[in-house]
């Protein structure tokens, strides 16, 4: 029995599973750390915008604040409303957080060189990576809708309804806006798209319309910035998570931030060439993952910036903006890309 186990572990399959587990561990722990520190970053960045100091009590420069927050969330009383639909109420936060974390599985973070050994940080290479991401991000809405419905609170219900219609509308734009990228690169694999851009040029300018549509639709998809209608504190007192407390609330929160970080990674890969160094070879001594990280940070900063600056749009304005402006624009981008490709420009 022990012998068998030994041969299995040292065998080809065993090593593959081991490396896979290691990579998943690195990526998931890294993602959760990023989530924790994104909350700190948000509070710090907002405080700079708002002429405040921001958290600075826990640890130097408030660096231990996320840990204190985590402990606080764990220690809080977990309240389930009496008339809530209990199984769904408990399930919803998990449904909100899991898809956001699963997205990290296909993101090509690049290679980590340790001495002579090369560790590819992408957990799995799926040849339909883009479709996989869209499938998962559509699942994300279930957590919010179910959470809003199961709480048995009218504000939560309204938040859930808003989330459903908002995410479904903007998912269309999201999907249409990357068709241009897929047409140009000829692949649905994220790795393929990044490699294509590594070898040729980044797609930011050739696909600028697509990029703008994707960025706006992504903010709406993430329920952030001026499109945070499902939670809208000042209208719906928190929306879908009004009734949630303790770790369940924290999971909604973490799901939102994980989706934001994952989204920044995806948009960096699709339009900015992932780990490609800007300005050609002069800067390529910095490893790829570092470039991807920097690009992600830029987008995360952007998401926090617009939330701090813009007021919230109204529900009907959001819908008409999505359907009457963004969707035709994304469709036009598909047409334009098609014309350019057949003309041999791209």
């Amino acid at each position, binding site marked *: 029995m022990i012998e068998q186990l030994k041969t299995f572990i040292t065998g080809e399959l065993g090593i593959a599973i081991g490396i896979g587990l290691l990579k998943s561990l690195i990526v998931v722990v890294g993602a959760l750390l990023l989530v924790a520190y994104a909350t700190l970053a948000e509070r710090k960045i907002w405080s700079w915008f*708002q*002429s405040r100091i921001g958290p600075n009590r826990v640890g130097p420069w408030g660096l231990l604040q996320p840990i204190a927050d985590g402990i606080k969330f764990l220690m809080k009383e977990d309240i389930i409303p009496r008339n809530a639909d209990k199984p769904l109420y408990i399930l919803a936060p998990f449904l909100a957080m899991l898809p956001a974390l699963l997205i990290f599985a296909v993101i090509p973070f690049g290679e980590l060189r340790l001495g002579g050994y090369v560790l590819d940080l992408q957990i799995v290479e799926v040849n339909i990576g883009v479709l996989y991401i869209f499938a998962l991000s559509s699942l994300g809405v279930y957590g919010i809708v179910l959470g809003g419905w199961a709480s048995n609170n*009218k*504000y939560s219900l309204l938040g859930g309804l808003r989330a459903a219609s908002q995410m479904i509308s903007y998912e269309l734009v999201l999907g249409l806006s990357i068709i241009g990228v897929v047409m140009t690169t000829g692949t649905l694999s994220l790795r393929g798209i990044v490699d294509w851009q590594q070898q040729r040029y980044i797609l930011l300018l050739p696909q600028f319309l697509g990029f703008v549509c994707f960025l706006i639709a992504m903010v709406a998809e993430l329920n952030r910035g001026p499109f945070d209608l499902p939670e*809208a504190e000042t209208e719906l007192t928190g929306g879908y998570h009004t009734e949630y407390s303790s770790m369940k609330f924290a999971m909604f929160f973490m799901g939102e931030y994980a989706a934001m970080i994952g989204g920044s990674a995806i948009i960096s890969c699709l339009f900015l060439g992932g780990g490609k160094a800007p300005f050609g070879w002069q800067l390529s001594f910095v490893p790829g993952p570092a470039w991807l990280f920097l690009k992600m940070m830029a987008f995360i900063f952007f998401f926090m910036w617009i939330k701090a600056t*813009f*007021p919230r749009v*109204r*529900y009907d304005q959001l819908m008409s903006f999505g359907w009457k402006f963004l969707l035709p624009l994304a469709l036009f981008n598909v047409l334009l890309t098609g014309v350019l490709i057949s003309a041999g420009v791209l």
Partner: protein
Amino acid sequence: MSVKTETMYLNMGPQHPSTHGVLRIGLEIDGEVVIKGTPDIGYLHRGMEKIAESSTYIKYVVMLDRTDYPCALTNEMAYILPVEKLLGCEVPARAQFIRTITMELNRIASHLLFFGTFGVDMGAITPINYAFRERELILDLLDDLSGQRLLYHYFRIGGVYRDLPQGWTERAMKFVKWMRDRLVEYDRLLSTNAIFIDRLRGVGIVSREDALAWGFTGPNMRASGVKFDLRKDEPYCAYQGLDFEVPTGKHGDCLDRYTMRMEEMYESTRIIEQAIAKLPEGEIRTKVPMRVKLPKGEWYGRVAGARGEHGCYIVSDGGASPYRLKIRAPSFSNLQILEKMLVGCKIADVVAIIGSVDISLGDVDR
């Protein structure tokens, strides 16, 4: 084929982030559209008018602060004005000017509170921090005069509590200059934001006729196009002879009501500047009997507060305390039309409308 639908009753408040206190609105909604909204007030009722009957004229001034607390000084003025008139007090000119300056500072503080909270109502989380930064400077200035940050009790029958401390006018002038630059900044941040304007334009329209019929006063009334300002048309204190504009709106929608207040802040800085330049030397208080007794009769005094017309109706039976005192609260009158404004708007508009009317629940319930 038709689907049977039902409306939903949504209880907004008294504990709700956007009702600015303890206003409760029963909303009947069809999806996101409001069919009927019924405001319910009284959660902050403290029986102020009844307390007046067992208080004395001098002691009661302190209660007035607590009605419209973000703009406390104009409340005091509305009460002191008729009392002084009846006593025949000759209030020294310096006191009149100090009253004018402090009331305008208070008005700016109140409008800053509006600007910040209205931004939050609209989902813009940054303006409130700027607004409170500036408001803090005003509170410091008024704190140096009265020893209080919010409920000043600075005006007395016959004058003001204390003279201006040394260097106060210079600090006030410095603030005025600072505040003007900030107003430009506010416009760049919020007033010219496309989302903000889209959210407010054409929402919660009150026609000129409605504004007059429902007793709108102050910036709300002027937003509907009625050019009337007690400071201009019925001058009290030192307002006569000071040069300032009365901004008026055209459409009477939320955007106009917002713009009125932003422009009023600028006009207030002008008033403060002129009043400080003209500030005469001299006494700050006249002698008033220890036991004030008003002659028998009924009197009404009114001033322009930040939210509208602050009025005080005093019925005296010749004794040392009012027989009956009625406070005309601008927020209470401004709230009356709410039920009409809410019909047919979206849930998000409810927040915008309540925010733009700028009520203070201490004022509504008294």
